[in-house]
């Protein structure tokens, strides 16, 4: 399996890519909502664009960024666990070497 294919088989990588796409879509919705509201003089139409486009887009962006932050924390915790595991293994090896020397 190539590294890129292996990366896309990982749920972490795919979820991060999807969340980035979702955040981009939210920003696009904000832009479209702004454009629609600016293109009309009717307050009722402007409110429609702002609620559906701008508020909806901001909600999508916040959702995506929140999940990205959660994934980042999970990754950081996983790295910390891996480093602790490495330290434990190294300490065990050092201890075994010291006992063998005695």
């Amino acid at each position, binding site marked *: 399996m190539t590294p890129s294919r292996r990366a896309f088989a990982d749920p972490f990588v795919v979820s991060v890519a999807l969340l980035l796409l979702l955040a981009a879509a939210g920003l696009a919705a904000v832009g479209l909502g702004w454009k629609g509201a600016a*293109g009309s*003089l009717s307050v009722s139409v402007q409110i429609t664009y702002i609620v559906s486009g701008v508020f909806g887009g901001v909600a999508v962006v916040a959702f995506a960024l929140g999940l990205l932050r959660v994934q980042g924390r999970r990754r950081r915790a996983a790295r910390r666990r891996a480093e602790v595991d490495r330290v434990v293994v190294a300490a065990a090896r050092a201890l075994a070497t010291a006992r063998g020397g005695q």
Partner: protein
Amino acid sequence: MRRSTLLVAVIAAMALFPMWTVRSAHAAVTSTAVASPAVTEDGWYAPPPTCALPSGCGPVSPTPSPVDRYPAHTLHVGVTGGIEDARTYLKFDPALPDGATPTKSTLTMPIAPSGDGSVQPETAMVVACLATAPFSPGEGTVGAPPAVDCNTSGPAEYAAGPPATLTVDLSPFLVRWKDTANNGIVLLPSPRTAPGTTWHVAFSAHDRAGSDVPPASIEVRYDPAPTAPASAATEPEPEPAPDVVTGGSRIGGLLGSALVAPPPSSAAAPIVDESKVPRVVRRPRLVGQVGGPGFAYPVVFAAPLLLLMLGAYFGWALTQPVDVSVQMRSAPAMESVSS
């Protein structure tokens, strides 16, 4: 043999001649011509909100014209909060040849996009009324609009586009213009507009150039003055089916009346006479209409399903163990996110 065949052919030709003359006369009477008179003058008014009061418009203070809000050479009809804020006057000359009888006349107005000022045109309730006073062909004239007579009126039917159109039946106006002066027609919000409603419909004026939206078009269908011989034109209706009771004298023509004597009237004659009366086809009448103009973007109904799928996926992805060895190689950018 040959002589008898010739005799049969001559008799058949003599018998069919009256039918041919009736058909040709009928065709001459029912041939429809089409005229497309152009709009010669148009303009729209922005009545002050006080015009909606029972006391009338009252003195109108000089206010800036709202024409600056809309592109030049556009026409407008609209309500804001249930109060009329724009109406459009159109004038055209439906000159028809002498003796012509209009059969169907329509005014078709393509609706301009939102960039020209249209707001929710699919919800517009526009009615066309007779203008009883001359109007000034201006754009966004602020003031009391010229008088109208909505006893002669017709609803504007909305048809989805592109471009969406409003269509008005002009037949009542053509009838009135036979005995009154032609001051044009006015397109204004229907009196049945619900309170609080807001919509706006923009059109292209007749002198607008450089726009994809064409101006209003008028089509008048009429029957020209009959030119067929009077004897043939007196019987324009289609010939009935052969009649066994009366001997079918019409089909037979001269031959039928000469060779077939009509039988005496029987008891079935009234029933047969009644069967000749054309049956009036009655269409079911709508007592109400359920539904609306539809959805502009029906694909939006897939959004909840998409959100559900995304939620399920993220719920699964966020509960999977993170393989740090893969992340170290493939997603170094996550360092900034995690920090």
